[in-house]
């Protein structure tokens, strides 16, 4: 099993004729991902790597059933392409671009909520269910170097660091059920608390790893969910950026305008509340693999 994505998931690629897409769609296909169609306005009727290309999401959906749409679209065009997928009712929309204007993200997320569509990102690197399928970037051209099937579910606010931790696990002989890069932006569609219940229900997942960062209250919300008993499997976590707390306020890194949240968003507090929820929190990167091993041994 896995969450969100498996070898039967039918994937649509928006912006399929772009440079990044050209590269990654091939990697996705080589990995076994079921890419059924692409969208590239003005290029309807073309083919890319044997995949039919359509002018719009709706015209693609007339010919194909789709479970996931992934947007290989530059940030300034994400609003239009994201709303197109949401309005067409694609069940899961994955937004990879970094630098999407906040008001655009808010609009996509608001519409998605109204019509019942799940959004992953913006600024997600995508997701992978090792041995089954991948969407977006995880693993690049060599997914087997970083990922193998196994019992650890991963959720990361940093796409790169989630892959880094997966690679360390893989090198230690520990595989993954699904890795989901939820995105580093202030406003994102899918959070830790949305995915924990899915990992809870997935029999293959025995341990979950969370990679957190400063700002927002996402890790705090996860800790509350765990403390309420909303998650029964062991969790290991790492929170980057504690040193930022010692720098003067107002720095470029991690500012989220959280006027009234007080110390919400401080990495030290995130670590404290996660520990109170019996999460194993690594202080250093190299502690993560031993803690995951310990957690696996406990179940």
């Amino acid at each position: 099993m896995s969450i969100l994505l498996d070898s039967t998931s039918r994937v649509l690629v928006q912006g399929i004729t772009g440079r990044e897409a050209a590269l990654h769609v091939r990697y996705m296909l080589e990995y076994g991902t079921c890419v059924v169609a692409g969208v590239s306005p003005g290029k309807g009727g073309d083919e890319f790597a044997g995949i039919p290309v359509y002018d719009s999401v709706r015209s693609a959906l007339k010919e194909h059933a789709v479970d996931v749409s992934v947007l290989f679209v530059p940030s300034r065009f994400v609003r239009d392409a994201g709303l197109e997928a949401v309005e067409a009712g694609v069940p899961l929309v994955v937004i990879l671009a970094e630098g999407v204007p906040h008001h655009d993200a808010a609009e996509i997320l608001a519409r998605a909520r109204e019509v019942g569509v799940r959004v992953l990102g913006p600024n997600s690197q995508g997701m992978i269910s090792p041995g089954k399928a991948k969407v977006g970037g995880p693993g690049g051209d060599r997914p087997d170097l970083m990922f193998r099937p196994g019992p650890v579910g991963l959720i990361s606010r940093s796409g790169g660091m989630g892959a880094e931790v997966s690679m360390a696990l893989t090198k230690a002989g520990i595989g993954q059920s699904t890795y989901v890069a939820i995105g580093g932006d202030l406003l994102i569609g899918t959070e830790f608390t949305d995915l924990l219940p899915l990992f809870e229900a997935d029999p293959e997942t025995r341990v979950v790893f969370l990679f957190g960062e400063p700002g927002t209250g996402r890790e705090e919300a996860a800790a509350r969910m765990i403390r309420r008993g909303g998650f029964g499997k062991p969790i290991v976590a790492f929170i980057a950026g504690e040193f930022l707390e010692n720098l003067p306020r107002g720095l470029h890194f991690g500012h989220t305008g959280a006027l009234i949240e007080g110390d919400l968003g401080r990495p030290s507090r995130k670590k404290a509340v996660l520990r109170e929820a019996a999460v194993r929190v690594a202080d250093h990167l190299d502690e993560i693999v031993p803690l995951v091993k310990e957690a696996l041994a406990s179940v």
Partner: protein
Amino acid sequence: MARLLENDSLSLLANEGIRLPRWGVASSAVEAEATAARLKCAVVLKALVPVGGRGKAGAIRSASNPAEAAAATAELLARHVGEFPVRRVLVMERLQIAEEQFASFTFDPAAKGPVLLFSRSGGVEVERQAGRAPGSLLRRAISVTRGFRPFEGRDVAVEAGLRGSVVPALGQLLASLYRVFRGCDARLVEINPLALTVAGELLPAAVVIDLDDQALFRHIELGDKLAEEEGTGFRPFTPLERRIHEIDRSDPHAGAIRFLEFPDGDIAFMVTSGGAALTALGQLISLGGRPANAFDITAGQNEEKIYLAMRAILRRPGLRGLIAGGNVKNFARVDLQVRGIVRALRDEGVDPRRFPVVLRFAGPGIEEAREIARNVSGLEFYEDETSLEGAVRRIVERTGR
């Protein structure tokens, strides 16, 4: 951070038809005197700097006549707020305030969209007051697809216990303010205090607008206003930060740079991609290393930017080593990054046999990257068999005293 100066923020409010106190901008005592004389009333003088905390810093003064306005302006223009020099002063009608309120529109990650915050206890320290009396701060999540309408503002007014003509006034004001928030792609629009005057009028007495860096492509004119005053949010750019900023602006499509200089550091730092930069910096500091800077760059054809930025970083005096690289890459070709770094080392005359250089790269293009690195003697090049933490340890060992 992309904070507008208050005069630019006031102009945005005025454009949306929001009634404001009368105001002008002075860049000399003579101009302030003339402005105060024209306003024919007592005035408030505020240093125009892109940072908060001006009240506490003594950068807001009061004057009851033009001569006093001139004197106070002369004093303000001679000083700094934080590290920002005061170049201009806002001259604003002084209001007879019966109640100081607070209103802001910002983004709430939990609500996945904008929220309105409103309080009848404005002034400084809204955060602390809200902590003491949690009910005093009203919060409304806003549906972006519907917007924020005057009746919703009236509901807020009623819930806050306001009565009479101020109820519709607040409704109109908040709806207009939300249009400002949307219209200029703001991250924050804050009015504090929002003055309820003795005469019963509702007037913004101080305005803060933070723009969204990620949306500046839609607001070229506002971006130009920011460029005049840009800094890191709490101080002006250092010369190195300004140079890196120029490099970044020179090609907006080749990845966006985030950069910060640490004045007392001595290890040049270029470990990239969001979480990896944060993680490696934290690791470096906890191991006793002192980073000279933070650096990150988003995905794109960024070899040339990396080259130019690395050259600028390496020119800083007093450096004792360099760590660069990142987590295992999914998208970016690491050979392009390594080539940019190695070119910069060569062109700056940096010899890794004498100046410790530790690189840690993994991802697409690693074979080519390995070849490029192999041709530079003294350079330590690590791949995925060494953890990011291992590489950080190595630079700390190599630069240890």
